[in-house]
């Protein structure tokens, strides 16, 4: 058996031991996971990004413009020194400004306009048959939006409309919860498959 399989098997059992109660073996496995994850991210970022995209081309002289992001990056560290902390606002401002500029139109288009246009479909098709799913989508959209309209008290007809909205929300929450349970079960089954097949070799 490979050493990696043995380590993975022992660590899986250590993590599963939490199901009984919190214990030092679980804690060790948890801290190991956090430490290895952070270490891995640091190494990958250094080798795969900083070296290949910044330091190598900059110091080889092939792209001197890279001095600008390098300086902006270094200014971020200024916040750790009281006297020059304000300098860190320059790269932060740059990031927030460019980030918002990129994200706002994309989100407005992708999450709002495209979704809105996809929600409003003809309620009757060309042969005169009602488009049931289209009607349900519009009913769900309008009643759910009513529920989130807080400038008017949820009473009378409007209150009933908002109440129907909660029904659609509950259906969504139920579906999402069901899928999440399915996902977590899949993760557990995946680890059990590893334990039974690769680690304990009880199944093929």
């Amino acid at each position, binding site marked *: 058996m490979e050493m990696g399989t043995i380590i993975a098997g022992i660590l899986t059992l250590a993590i599963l031991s939490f199901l009984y109660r919190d214990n030092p073996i679980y804690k060790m496995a948890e801290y190991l996971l956090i430490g290895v*994850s952070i270490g891995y991210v640091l190494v990958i970022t250094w080798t795969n990004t900083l070296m*290949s995209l910044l330091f190598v081309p900059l110091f080889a002289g092939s792209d001197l413009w890279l001095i600008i992001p390098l300086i902006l990056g270094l200014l971020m560290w200024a916040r750790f020194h009281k006297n020059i902390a304000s300098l860190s606002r320059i790269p932060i401002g740059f990031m927030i400004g460019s980030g918002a500029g990129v994200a706002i139109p994309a989100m407005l288009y992708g999450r709002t306009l495209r979704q809105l246009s996809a929600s409003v479909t003809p309620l009757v098709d060309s042969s005169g048959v009602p488009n049931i799913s289209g009607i349900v989508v519009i009913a769900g959209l309008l009643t759910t939006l009513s529920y989130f309209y807080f400038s008017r008290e949820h009473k009378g007809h409007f209150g009933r409309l908002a109440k129907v909205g909660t029904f659609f929300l509950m259906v969504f929450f139920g*579906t999402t919860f069901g899928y999440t349970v399915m996902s*977590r079960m899949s993760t*557990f089954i995946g*680890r*059990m498959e590893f334990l039974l097949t690769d680690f304990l070799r009880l199944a093929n």
Partner: protein
Amino acid sequence: MKKLEARHFAFLGLFLVVTLTMLLNIKLDMKASPYTQALYNYIEFLPEGSTLIVSFDHEASSLPEIRPIATAVLRHAFRKKHKLIGVSLLAEGTLIGYRLMRETAGEHGAEYGTDYVYLGFRPQYIAAILAMGESIEKTYPQDYLGNPYGQFELLKGVQNYDDIAAVVSIADGSLTTHWIEYGQARYGVRVVGAVTAAMVTTYDPYLASGQMYAMMGGLRGAAEYEKLIGKDGGGARGMLAQSSAHIYVILLIVLGNIAYFSSRRTKGSG
């Protein structure tokens, strides 16, 4: 020793259900859902040798669920002799993606550099997606192993998304959304998803609006896909355990409710 509580018996029951059903090794007969069928059809009917970006947008913690999903799609793509460019927008997915590509490529005799290339990780996923829309080579001057971009036969002529048939986002979170909002909306690249079950409801609206072309979800999706490609994997092996575990959870919910209402009645009468 700690006193055993009800939850301990619930966990023990789940452990027994999953272990016993996995040891039985019975495969359920799966029928592909329209979602999975659409993804299969897309990859199946793409012209041979089409170039796909496979983005490993997940963390290590979701590997047990992601592995069968990714393996099924990769096997299909390699079998159809499509050219695959692997990338990762989450650092933790980088090595996993590389190993999955290497393993499935090995099964089909696909060669590195000619049939597939792994470019690796880039931080700031939005910036990476946008940058690839302008130039993949400038975003990834080197592959994951440090070889220059221009060295590979596969990458000659691949400038940006115009030369890509689709992006296959293998995700356990919301990163596919960014492929849709930045890659698809801005550059028109087709996005298909192979995602964990927990993310299915997040991406349903994008599928309905046509912003996402096709999607496969969860272990069940993997099992359906494995049946379509005619090669069993982790999905098919896990489906009996998954179904049994779900029945077990439903039983626990019913029993919990019965216990709750009977205790309330007892308190009320008392």
